[in-house]
């Protein structure tokens, strides 16, 4: 019983860490403009819309976070093997991983923006100076939380995978959850704030991203501030639920019927999310209504 209570406590902690990690990951990727919406940041100058948005998509979010979290976890693991205190080891490992992220962010911005020189897009040095450190700070939070939850899973809950491998797996899952949930909000709702609310961006508007703010030109810090409210929070809840429920069903129900208990609970949870998804879909159809009459729709 004591073991189960301990397991539930650790599970709750990992869920909370995952929620913060998901939120920070999405905000970092939006400030740095990494992920699918960056296609518009790259496209805009080619359509004649010069901008001051950061542009650091060197890879998709999942492989990028897989690398950074595996790096942070691997270094932390090495430091712990050198008998350094676990908390300090994780912090040091994550700091070094974030330095790599900073190098990637800088070279990606310079490389990608320089490739747009023929369209007249300048490389803004002040953008590098002001944005890179902010993306690095958010990346540190995301990587630190992910590596810490991996350490808890490995050390306290006894998962067989070594820390670096857990870092790789949960880093990729973090990037997948964060990009899947957060990308549409940044891509549609923020970059195309000049388009109608409640509709997708017409393909003919591609590249015409919003470039001006209340005063002066829009920068990526504004994007992070805006998207964090819904996109970042939703990404955090998404990754937090994934980590929490996956561990929770294992800790509480794995012993029942030689493992089948956790399977049945997992299937029940899938069914609950299926019902919730269907409810959201039907709610939207009823409350927002169709864009055109069914008989004339093409």
């Amino acid at each position, binding site marked *: 019983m004591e073991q189960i209570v301990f397991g539930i406590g650790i599970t709750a902690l990992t869920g909370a860490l995952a929620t913060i990690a998901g939120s920070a990951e999405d905000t970092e990727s939006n400030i740095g403009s990494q992920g699918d919406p960056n296609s518009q940041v790259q496209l805009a100058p080619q359509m004649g819309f010069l901008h001051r948005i950061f542009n650091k998509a060197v890879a998709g979010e999942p492989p990028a976070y897989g690398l950074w979290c595996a790096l942070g976890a691997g270094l932390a693991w090495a430091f712990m093997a050198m008998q350094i205190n676990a908390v300090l080891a994780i912090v040091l490992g994550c700091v070094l991983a974030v330095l790599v992220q900073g190098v990637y962010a800088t070279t990606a911005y310079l490389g990608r923006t320089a490739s747009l020189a023929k369209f007249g897009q300048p490389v803004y040095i002040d953008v590098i100076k002001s944005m890179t450190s902010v993306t690095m700070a958010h990346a540190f939070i995301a990587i630190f939380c992910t590596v810490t939850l991996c350490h808890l899973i490995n050390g306290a809950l006894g998962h067989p995978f070594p820390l670096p491998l857990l870092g790789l797996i949960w880093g990729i899952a973090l990037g997948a959850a964060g990009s899947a949930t957060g990308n549409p909000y940044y891509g549609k709702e923020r970059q195309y704030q000049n388009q109608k609310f409640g509709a997708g961006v017409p393909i003919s508007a591609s590249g015409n991203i919003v470039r001006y703010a209340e005063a002066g030109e829009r920068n990526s810090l504004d994007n992070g501030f805006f998207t964090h409210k819904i996109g970042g929070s939703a990404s955090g809840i998404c990754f937090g639920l*994934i980590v929490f429920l996956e561990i929770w069903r294992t800790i509480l129900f794995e012993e029942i019927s030689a*493992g089948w208990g956790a399977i049945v609970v997992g299937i029940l949870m*899938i069914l609950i999310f299926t019902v919730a*998804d269907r409810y959201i879909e039907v709610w939207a159809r009823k409350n927002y209504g169709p864009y055109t009459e069914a008989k004339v729709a093409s």
Partner: protein
Amino acid sequence: MSAVAAKPQAGGAMNPTAMVIGIVMLLIILALCWYVSPGLGLMALIGITIGGVLIGFGTHFVPVGGAPAAMGQAPGIATGVAMLAAGAGLAGLFGGAWAAEQGLVVATVTGGVGGGLMMAITCMMVNFVYVFGMGIPSASGKVAKDPITGDTQAEFKSQGTEGHGLPFVSFVGGVIGGFLGGAGGTLIYLQLLQLYEATLPAVMGVPPAQVMPIAVAAAGIFAVGLFLVNAVLTAYNITGTIEGPHDPKFKRWPRSIVASAVASALCGFVAILIVAL
């Protein structure tokens, strides 16, 4: 026809000669494995190949819209096919590896349920953001009616787009894809773990207890690598984006599973050679 609708369709053609060559290559690799390690090694390679095929087939179900989905211009999840499939499958592998002591069937199903659960949560949150964050209902661009619910789709597509969000059939596809990916990844891991546990002590000349961490880490990293190989192969097969099982591109799966079987067998053979030679 709009830019999104005008995606190349010629990629869907099957090439029987290439498929036969693929099957012959698979048989050659299996024969080589039988020659090098006839018992445990061959069984492991067959399990790895089945796992790889499950991953390749499962990836076809995952609804991925890529960059257009991020602007609400096309349905699906706004990220890459291989990345999302890997995220779900590896979350499943995490659960499956934890249940490895419970036996092959329980661990494989646990891995599958883990992948399915990850996709269920992600797909629901995607629709949550579309509906409550952006005020956009789900609409498919590939079918007039949702094959499961019968909901009409065309009138819910906003002007100038190919649809948006995740219709119910895409949600179900995502869960199935996550399940198959998680189960496949776990199967590969279990096969390699079994092989390494049995052979590494003799190869390294150390007691079995000492070899466990190495066996787990090596099997785990090979499982992750094989997962990415199969997910990326499938991403090429479906040329970037797919809505789910109702998408016409889904019919391309036969050639993908042949490719996945060959690639998995080859990679698995290398993983077996580590202890067989």
